[in-house]
């Protein structure tokens, strides 16, 4: 273990070669996916009788080309980074958390409850951590269920998290519809404490966009996840379980405990994502606010190759697609972006094993 760490740091000839191989294996699939998505996008645009070049330039113009569009991309990327980090954390331990959708919703709900319960005079410096803790605890609670069922009974986490999505979302729907809604709506009253300042408060150019200080929180979470995974022995053990659970167990790591930790923390991270909407944007919890961001976290983790910084880049990519859909809607239905998101996931999923096989095959040939 210590040998490999020092090898990574010393730029010896072998270490650079290994690093380049890893980079190739990590970067090629997303690039292939981008190319495939561009071609599919062309076909869809042409099927609607529009010019791909014009539509794509509109897409860029409406997202990165002006402050409002960019603010919206920032806002959407923030939630997606939370859910992408959550899925990545599980994946690093070899576990698939498909429950991001309900964990995100539960986190947002808990953040709203905390914001409602606190007196309106609570300073943000106190209210924010309390709301974040509430959000993380709710997400972690949902994440702990598949964790316990997996370690205790061997129930597969994929099925359990999918089933839990339906259960938790139905429960939250009941809570809102029967108990907590403002009449004629499906959302809670406005929170009294914990509302985050928006980017537009500091930079008027962002006026109207939902970007807010939650993005600082997510950046901190991303750095913390990276540090834990790659710079602590706990993270090393977690990755070891993800690569080879049997070998890790033999090496003295309690696989069950790692699974428990990985799925629970994954739920915590997804739950914290709820603050972006509740504290940062609407200042209330609304039924159905997650709107697929939890599921898209799977795509973000996959394209970001489960690396926290890759996740941030991937989150920006998917946020751009989602916001870009609105920018082009007058010419091509925004539903085109739903298709492209799925195409990107499929292309990455298909090219990861293929790229590895081809690269390793060619290396073996050049070695021989």
């Amino acid at each position, binding site marked *: 273990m210590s040998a490999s760490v020092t090898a990574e740091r010393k730029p010896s000839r072998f270490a650079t070669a290994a690093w380049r191989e890893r980079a190739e294996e990590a970067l090629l699939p997303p690039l292939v996916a981008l190319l495939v998505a561009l071609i599919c996008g062309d076909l869809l645009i042409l099927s609607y009788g529009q010019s791909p070049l014009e539509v794509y330039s509109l897409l860029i113009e409406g997202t990165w080309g002006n402050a409002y569009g960019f603010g919206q991309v920032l806002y959407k990327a923030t939630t997606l980074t939370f859910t992408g980090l959550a899925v990545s954390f599980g994946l690093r331990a070899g576990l698939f958390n498909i429950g991001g959708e309900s964990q995100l919703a539960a986190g947002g709900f808990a953040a709203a409850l905390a914001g409602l319960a606190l007196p309106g005079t609570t300073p943000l410096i106190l209210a924010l951590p309390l709301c974040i803790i509430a959000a993380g605890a709710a997400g972690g609670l949902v994440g702990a269920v598949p964790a316990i069922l997996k370690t205790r009974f061997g129930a597969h986490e994929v*099925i359990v998290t999918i089933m839990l999505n339906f259960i938790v979302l139905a*429960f939250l729907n009941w809570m809102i519809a029967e108990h907590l809604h403002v009449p004629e709506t499906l959302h809670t009253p406005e929170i009294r404490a914990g509302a985050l300042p928006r980017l537009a408060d500091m930079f008027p150019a962002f006026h109207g966009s939902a970007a807010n200080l939650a993005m600082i929180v997510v950046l901190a979470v991303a750095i913390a996840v990276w540090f834990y995974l790659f710079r602590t022995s706990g993270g090393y053990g977690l990755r070891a379980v993800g690569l080879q659970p049997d070998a890790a167990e033999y090496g003295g790591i309690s696989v069950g405990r790692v699974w428990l930790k990985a799925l629970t923390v994954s739920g915590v991270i997804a739950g914290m994502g709820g603050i972006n909407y509740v504290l940062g944007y609407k200042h209330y919890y609304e039924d159905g606010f997650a709107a697929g961001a939890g599921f898209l976290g799977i795509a973000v983790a996959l394209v970001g190759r489960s690396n926290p910084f890759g996740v941030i880049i991937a989150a920006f990519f998917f946020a751009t697609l989602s916001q870009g859909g609105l920018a082009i809607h007058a010419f091509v239905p925004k539903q085109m972006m739903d298709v492209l998101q799925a195409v990107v996931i499929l292309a990455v999923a298909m090219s990861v094993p293929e790229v590895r096989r081809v690269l390793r095959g060619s290396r073996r040939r050049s070695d021989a």
Partner: protein
Amino acid sequence: MNAVDFLTQTIRIAIPYLFAASGGVIAERAGIVSLTLEGFMLSGAFGAALGTHYSGNPVVGVLSGVLCALIFSLIHALATIRYRADQVVVGVAVNLLAIGITRFFLKLAFDSSSNSPRVAGFGGNMQAAGFDNPLLWLGLLVAPLVAFVIYRTPYGLRVRAAGDHPDAAESVGVSVKRVRWIAVAASGILAGLGGVYLALDQHQFTDQMTAGRGFIAISAVIFGRWNPIRAALACLLFAAAETLQIQLQGSHAIPSQFIEMIPYVLTIIALAGVVGRSVAPAALGKAAD
């Protein structure tokens, strides 16, 4: 409402589940994770509405619906079997793709983001209460049919071998990949028929009209321990709960959300092994060489 009405309504609700769960059993017994049933159903429903709209004939709608679902299942097979992609990821992607493509073409074909125009369907005699629809009878027969194929035919033996002991199957000359391709295609056709039934029964396609039915079907597969007959009984049980929920609406005896949870809670309980352990095929989700 009397017992006969309750039973007929339960059966009508169960038909899409019966189709999809039967497809799910075949694919999962062959070792391929069936998170895609939802997407297959949705594309089948859209294809049925599209085909029936342009031809005016529901039979054409059935064929085009099955064809659409088949195309999606072949994408699923290509990704998971040929390219050995992660089956869970592909499952999520295929479902998103089905939502996206049906939305895009709903806009393109009918210029709507919510629903297609009204289309023809089968039967429609009020007295028959839906039982003059040949698809309903097919839906009732499909589970015994799948049980026969899986337990009583050479192909069924290969399906079970591909899902439990792919290496052993390969060693006696069975092409696991081919068995799996056929199983996934069959699951696409069957789940697609579930979607076709849904669209023709409601006489239109609406955005995301399957509304999680594919996942209820997966629940039925797991709750039925990957046995087609038990899965079919689970489908009927879940449909009965839904019928009950419709009956109770307005009475506020039990909130409808809690009845909605029943299939999912039962599935988790089954997976946790509280009432008889639910054990998946041994090689479920593992790519074959």
